[in-house]
């Protein structure tokens, strides 16, 4: 890192610090009273601070304070409002816990919560008290709490080493690091021991034992140093944050970046803790890296890796996963890119000469390639070794009793048959037959039955076949050798085969899963609508996990609704509130989890990119295994993604509809006000003229005529609007009746008499035209508009053709003109509401043709527009009809 970089605050970090700050403002503040061990007076100090705060007027309640019956402490709690504890019944005893919901509902400014690392009673919402505290903080309530150094996750091991006591209640470091304020409550070891012997710490019976086990001066001193150091480091870090935030250039404290390389071994846990401690004391940043190599992880290794990742997360160490066959190269590349100053690795396992060679290779290589980066190599821990001592893995004995019986029976039957023909084939050949049988059986049965078959067949061969017969005694050394070889080959064969089978099964399972995911993705892609997605989801989860599930989705009001009812899962009020919690916090809860584990179901959030889509609840009997877990997550992520797309699509559609109707509304207003105004102006103008003065008859006649034309035009517009609104409402249904299409043509010619005057109208109807069953009024309206449209768009004197015929189940009505025709671009949109052709001559609302379409569609018919070869437009209506031959009735 060059000096320029060093002085300039990294923008990403800056942004992160701002975001953190903002987040912190909304949240309540967490103040931790931190001490080296019990008895230093943390609770006491907390209460005193609270009291001072209360005098200043703050609203403070006690959420949970453990007084340990100490007189001074009890006195201090007086005067504070006490939120009653909640009682949980567990295995015949009742345990009192903090009442989280009441505190949140009470919403004080500050709540006092003792012992942050406490583990809650079974049945509580969260397994740990710090989860409760997080929730309180999220609700904007400040929390005062107490914590001892030994409860910090990164220190628990060291504490265990110092004091010999294993700490079970631990707290993730990041909770501590993110605390807004930490106040150290300190006491010298002598003072503490004095207080202990004065009985101020525990009641007398318990204190002696406690002192002997824990409160040794050496222990206390070590713990004290640790506590002081942590707080000092924190102060440093705060200074660093502050300087960066305020752009103070200056000697960055360390500029040190640690990189800890972890793997799938137990050893990595220690590595992580150690590195974290180092980063504290060095004031260095820290991140972890895991290199995925070609090594195929066993189930145990997978589990361990998971634990390692979890610890890193708890310690607040970010993990990067990189896939590379060359671990050294990957680590060094990454370290260089990230300006890492120290690399921390664990000692590779030394198992044999080969790995010793490899070990040398790994560490040497790392040292050689890492250039000026420091490399720490940490020794492996003793207790971990047993975990991974490689043994010849014998497949588990999982076969059931019938398999044993079948294998034994088959061996006996085969032996019996061989016995009958032993003279022909000789006893040695029998062994091959038995060997063959055992190998075949191994294809179908597990290790146990095969072992049995191998023993049984060797005994039978020995007793019944190898001379001297009917004794286990064997004469020839060659036969002894044969028998021994027979036994081992049978056994080995069987075991190997069954191992291959297991491997195959694993691959098959993996293949099945990949396939299932593929199928799911495909079906989801094709699905449309939330209901379909839900039914696919339920189907697949049932099929591949054999789980009954129910899906709870957010609705428009951002509330949750259970959407599938084809399930046996009936969620109670309580369970619905778990679902709501899961939805809000994006983390799973219920059975097999840390939160509300007493529920019957496990709730998983459906997490999308833009927020949560809902929750899925399953009735899960067992915890998922590692493989299943990944599979399940992949499943959920597919499902959530699809739900998200559906929600987005719905939202987009809604916005679209709104937009569309808004647009239509505007067009309607514009075009109608125009269309209304013109004739109304004419009427007013003409009638005004007529009223004001007397004119010669000829002029008056002309004005009357204008008024008449304007009025007809108005009437037509009103007709169209009425028809449109009737069509839009969907209320009108065609009333079908027999119709002679000649009537139709006549009617049109009659009602458009005026308009058709300048044109030549030819009506073409075949002689054998049958009666058709239609709604006369509808078709008349439609045809009227089509012919009117033709008159409006054609030059005077041209011919308009109206052709009506029956063709293959449909009544076809064609209107053809010799006008200017339609633009190619208009052909598809000419029937849209308020659409007016670019070259349209006539004024109009653009309603006429859309009404034609409406009436045609009310008849389940179709309408098309096209241009004629020698100019002009052609409109074709096709209406499916019932017909009746006219000749029948005469």
């Amino acid at each position, binding site marked *: 890192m060059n000096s320029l970089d060093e002085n300039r605050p990294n923008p990403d970090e800056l942004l992160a610090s701002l975001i953190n700050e903002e987040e912190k403002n909304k949240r309540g503040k967490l103040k931790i009273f931190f001490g080296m061990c019990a008895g230093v007076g943390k609770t006491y100090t907390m209460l005193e601070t609270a009291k001072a705060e209360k005098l200043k007027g703050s609203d403070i309640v006690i959420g949970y304070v453990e007084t340990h019956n100490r007189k001074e402490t009890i006195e201090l709690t007086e005067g504070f409002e006490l939120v009653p504890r909640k009682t949980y019944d567990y295995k015949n005893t009742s345990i009192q816990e903090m009442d989280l919901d009441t505190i949140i509902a009470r919403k004080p400014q500050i709540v006092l919560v003792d012992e942050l690392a406490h583990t809650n009673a079974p049945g509580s919402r969260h397994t740990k008290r710090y989860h409760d505290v997080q929730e309180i903080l999220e609700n904007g309530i400040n929390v005062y709490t107490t914590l001892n150094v030994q409860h910090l996750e990164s220190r628990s091991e060291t504490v265990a080493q110092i004091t010999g006591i294993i700490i079970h209640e631990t707290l993730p470091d990041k909770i501590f690091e993110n605390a807004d304020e930490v106040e150290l409550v300190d006491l010298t070891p002598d003072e503490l021991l004095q207080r202990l012997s004065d009985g101020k710490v525990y009641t007398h019976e318990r204190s002696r034992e406690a002192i002997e086990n824990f409160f040794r001066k050496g222990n206390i001193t070590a713990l004290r140093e640790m506590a002081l150091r942590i707080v000092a480091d924190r102060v440093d870090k705060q200074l660093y944050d502050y300087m960066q935030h305020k752009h103070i250039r200056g000697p960055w404290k360390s500029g040190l970046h640690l990189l800890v390389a972890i793997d799938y071994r137990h050893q990595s846990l220690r590595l992580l803790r150690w590195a974290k401690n180092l980063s504290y004391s060095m004031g260095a940043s820290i991140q972890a890296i895991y290199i995925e190599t070609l090594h195929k992880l066993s189930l145990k290794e997978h589990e361990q890796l998971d634990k390692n990742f979890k610890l890193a997360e708890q310690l607040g160490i970010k993990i990067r996963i990189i896939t590379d066959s060359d671990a050294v190269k990957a680590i060094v590349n990454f370290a260089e890119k990230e300006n890492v100053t120290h690399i921390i690795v664990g000692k590779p396992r030394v198992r044999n000469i080969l790995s010793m060679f490899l070990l040398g290779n790994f560490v040497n290589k790392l040292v050689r390639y890492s250039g000026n980066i420091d490399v720490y190599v940490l020794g492996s821990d003793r207790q971990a070794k047993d975990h991974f001592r490689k043994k010849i893995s014998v497949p588990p004995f999982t076969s059931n009793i019938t398999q044993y019986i079948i294998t034994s029976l088959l061996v006996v039957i085969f032996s019996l048959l061989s016995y009958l023909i032993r003279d022909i084939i000789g006893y040695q050949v029998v062994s091959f037959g038995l060997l063959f049988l055992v190998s075949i059986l191994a294809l179908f049965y597990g290790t146990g039955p095969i072992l049995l078959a191998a023993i049984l067949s060797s005994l039978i061969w020995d007793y019944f076949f190898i001379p001297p017969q009917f004794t286990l005694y064997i004469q020839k050394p060659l036969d002894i050798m044969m028998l021994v070889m027979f036994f081992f080959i049978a056994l080995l064969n069987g075991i190997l085969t069954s191992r291959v089978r297991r491997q195959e099964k694993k691959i098959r399972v993996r293949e099945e899963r990949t396939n299932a995911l593929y199928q799911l993705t495909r079906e989801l892609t094709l699905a449309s609508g939330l209901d379909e997605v839900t039914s696919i989801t339920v189907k697949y989860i049932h099929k591949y996990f054999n789980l009954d599930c129910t899906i709870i989705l957010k609705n428009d009001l951002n509330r949750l609704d259970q959407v599938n009812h084809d399930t046996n899962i009936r969620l109670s009020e309580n369970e619905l509130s778990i679902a709501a919690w899961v939805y809000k916090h994006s983390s799973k809860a219920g059975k097999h989890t840390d939160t509300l584990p007493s529920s019957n179901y496990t709730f998983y959030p459906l997490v999308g990119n833009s927020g949560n889509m809902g929750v899925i609840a399953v009735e899960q009997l067992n915890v998922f295994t590692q493989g299943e877990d990944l599979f399940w997550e992949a499943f959920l992520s597919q499902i959530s993604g699809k739900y998200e797309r559906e929600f987005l699509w719905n939202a987009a559609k809604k916005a679209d509809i709104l937009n569309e109707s808004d647009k239509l509304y505007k067009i309607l207003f514009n075009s109608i006000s125009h269309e209304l105004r013109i004739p109304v102006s004419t009427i007013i103008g003409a009638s005004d003229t007529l009223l004001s003065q007397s004119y010669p008859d000829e002029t008056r006649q002309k004005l009357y005529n204008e008024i008449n034309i304007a009025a007809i035009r108005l009437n037509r517009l009103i007709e169209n609007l009425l028809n449109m609104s009737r069509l839009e409402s969907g209320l009108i249904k065609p009333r079908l009746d*027999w119709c*002679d299409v000649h009537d139709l043509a006549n009617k049109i010619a009659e009602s458009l008499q005026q308009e058709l005057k300048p044109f030549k109208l030819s009506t073409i109807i075949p002689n054998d035209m049958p*009666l058709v069953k239609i*709604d006369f009024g509808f078709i008349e309206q439609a045809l009227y508009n089509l012919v009117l449209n033709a008159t409006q768009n054609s030059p005077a004197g041209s011919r308009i053709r109206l052709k009506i015929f029956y063709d293959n189940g449909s009544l076809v009505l064609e209107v053809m003109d010799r006008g200017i025709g339609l633009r190619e671009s208009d052909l598809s949109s000419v029937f849209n509401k308020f659409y007016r052709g670019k070259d349209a001559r006539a004024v109009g609302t653009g309603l006429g043709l859309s009404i034609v379409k409406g009436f045609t569609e009310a008849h389940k018919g179709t309408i098309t527009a096209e241009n004629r070869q020698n100019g002009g437009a052609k409109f074709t209506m096709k209406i499916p009809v019932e017909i009746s031959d006219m000749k029948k*009735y005469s």
Partner: protein
Amino acid sequence: MTDTDTILIIDDEVQIRRLLEITLTANGYKISDAASGKEGLVFAATIRPTLIILDLGLPDADGIDILKKLREWYLKPIIILSVRDSEEDIVKALDYGANDYLTKPFRTKELLARIRVAIRQSNGALNNPELSFGALTIDLANHIVRKNNEVIKLTTTEFSLLALLAKNAGRVLTHQFILKEVWGMGYVQQTQYLRVFVAQLRKKIEEDPAKPKLLNTESGIGYRFGS
């Protein structure tokens, strides 16, 4: 038409009443008007008009109900004048005894023609057994129809149809009414018979069957002969 022909207008729209009053008075009728159904019923009973023009959309009652009440005792013509243009409403009004109908907006010329036809028919002007419409003459007594003085051969059904229409010339007859009168009760839904016979009849009596002048179609309602 005599001076004593009084027309009662039952319509709640002032402007329409004014227009009708001006037009009808100018054509020699005496006018009386009512703005509600109730008033209309009272006036009809006291004035005993020659003809009633009734709007279907009245503020206090459904025009159809007023029509029914009027028809309990009032036997003279009633013409419906309404903005309701659905065929169903019109057919219903005709079925309940209205003589004719017109939808708003209407042509005053047309209204006057309907009024004349209705009054003439109610005066029993049909005593003449021979009717003539332009070139067409119909001898009802002898069942002879002539066009341009040439006898046209008609089947019995065709003649019954023509006679029914001609006797009610100028007035709209609904499909159901015609079917009932000519074919009988069992045929009221069999409009295909009517279509076929109307088409045949047109070919025989019209100058240009493609542009009928005598046998006019009233879309979705029925037929009107002549005028």
